[in-house]
């Protein structure tokens, strides 16, 4: 077990290093390098000055060397400044992380609260009318473009009915968090509908799998009621894969809500990554992307570990 974790962590580290190099290289290929931006701010600079500046900041070095320098200074704690926000990147990331956590956590709980009964309800009578209806809804949920769903909800609840704000995080004078609650409703609902479909199908599948097992037949044979079978015998085992989903979703925390956050101007990590890439904020984009990758890899590892811990039949080499 310890060896497995060690191996996986090592593997994740390699992926991260490769990713950091790839993204670093890609950033250099994006329009507008730092010197261009300086020149556009000061028209009196000549091309000779530009060359001089490039040499001064080391931008005339080969890409591998530059990446290595970046890596060394990042590992020693110097993560750089954000160009867009004029502050250390870590100070920008922290509040965004909190906002994303609020949005994704809320939507995950809501989604599970609906998907759990729906999945169990559908799995209890496979191929029935109710199974068919729930399945069709899930099918529709998978196919709906998240950003369009968000736009439609804004059109209905913010534009036509005027019940809820169209985006942002709160009023200027907002004193407490419940004062900002209405700003959470539309993004959380959008994200929930986007995730609900896969959660429901997942739970239905897990429940069907469990209901096919011998111990369920035994429980039926000894005369246990359906309710007892579902809650006492089946559901607990069907929940094991759900824990896996939870771990995977934790990994997606950094980037999973990028579209929803952008549509609703919710200042989470996803929107931060998007703004940083479009705004030539290399330091911020690089760090946020790498953290997003690290979280995803960590989530995958946690999912595997949780699975092995909850289901003793699973053995990892």
């Amino acid at each position: 077990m310890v060896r497995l974790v060690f191996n996986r962590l090592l593997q994740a580290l390699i992926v991260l290093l490769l990713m950091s190099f790839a993204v670093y290289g890609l950033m250099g290929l994006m329009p507008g390098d730092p010197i261009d931006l300086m020149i556009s701010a000061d028209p009196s600079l000549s091309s000779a000055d530009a060359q001089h500046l490039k040499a001064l900041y080391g931008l005339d070095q080969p890409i591998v060397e530059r990446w290595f320098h970046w890596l060394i200074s990042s590992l020693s704690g110097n993560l750089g400044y954000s160009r867009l926000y004029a502050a250390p990147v870590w100070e920008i990331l922290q509040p965004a992380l909190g906002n994303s956590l609020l949005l994704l956590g809320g939507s995950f709980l809501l989604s599970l609260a609906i998907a759990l009964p729906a999945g169990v309800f559908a799995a209890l009578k496979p191929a029935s009318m109710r199974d068919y209806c729930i399945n069709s809804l899930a099918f529709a949920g998978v196919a709906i473009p998240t950003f369009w769903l968000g736009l439609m909800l804004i059109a209905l609840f913010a534009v036509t009915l005027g019940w809820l704000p169209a985006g942002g995080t709160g009023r200027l004078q907002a004193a407490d968090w419940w004062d900002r609650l209405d700003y959470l409703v539309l993004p959380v609902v959008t994200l929930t509908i986007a995730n609900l479909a896969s959660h429901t199908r997942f739970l239905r599948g897990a429940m069907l799998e469990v209901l096919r097992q011998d111990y369920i037949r035994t429980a039926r044979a000894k005369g246990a009621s359906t309710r007892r079978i579902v809650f006492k015998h089946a559901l607990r085992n069907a929940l094991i894969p759900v824990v896996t989903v939870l771990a995977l979703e934790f990994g997606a925390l950094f980037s999973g809500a990028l579209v929803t956050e952008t549509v609703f101007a919710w200042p989470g990590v996803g929107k931060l990554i998007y703004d940083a890439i479009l705004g030539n904020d290399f330091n911020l984009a690089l760090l946020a992307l790498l953290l997003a990758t690290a979280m995803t890899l960590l989530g995958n590892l946690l999912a595997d570990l949780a699975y092995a811990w909850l289901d003793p039949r699973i053995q990892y080499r």
Partner: protein
Amino acid sequence: MGRPAIRWRFLRHRLVLGGGLVLLVLGLLSLSAPLGETLLGLDGDQVNLLQRLQEPSAHHWLGTDELGRDVLLRLLYGGRVSLLVGLVGAVVAAIIGTGIGLLAGYLGGRWDTLLMRITDGVIALPLLPLLIVLAAVDLQKLGLPANLIQAETVSLYRIIIIVALFGWTQVARLVRGATLSVRERDFILAARSIGAGPLRIMAVHILPNVTSPIIIATSLSVGHIILLESVLSFLGLGIQPPLPSWGNMLSHAQEMLWSAPWLAIYPGALIFITVMACNFLGDGLQDALDPRSQSSG
């Protein structure tokens, strides 16, 4: 399982047929966009600032957008782009995935481990942010010729390449699995014994036997790729205007929600319908080609 199961199967097949039919109609309508232009007496690219944001009328059936262009015609032309990206992107991804899956499954051993590790790595990456980075790369800095970069269709090729770069993993896994079982069969041994090389065995003897997983995974990925294209175009990084796609038609719709909410409805509804039809079709093909799979039925 008796009557409900039969009804279920029947319904599924009707949905599959429906999905195919919807895709066929959408494809034909998109292809006939120039015909629509002559019938309506309009030009799809014609900007007319005097007729901005008109509501649907007899002349403009679905109204006009913020530059006075006819929304119906732009939807038809956008359909061409979105369907093309979905289809070509899925096929290119399938070709990459089939190659990697065949190599991993047939060569086995260290190659298998390496290729599957790479596949796992790609699956674990945060997809959307990476797509955004790739879509933001300046082609000029890649050293591509200027006349290619300035071509209107360059964003089309770019998006197809980007989605294919990340869309091959599912096919690769399925093809590898199928190859592993085909590899052990006697006719492979026979082919090897008469001196066929690995490339020939993979292309002539294994490939025809692993077509079902390829077809299933490809058809299921079409809808997914259309969704990805629409998201990137919506964010302003996919298909670049004036070339219309259903995604980029929505990128200005958010600012127009107060003045012209109908603009936001049609493109998204078309994406929704198309993706759903693709998924129904892919699911049905899975039922038909892989009788053992009971995953969704």
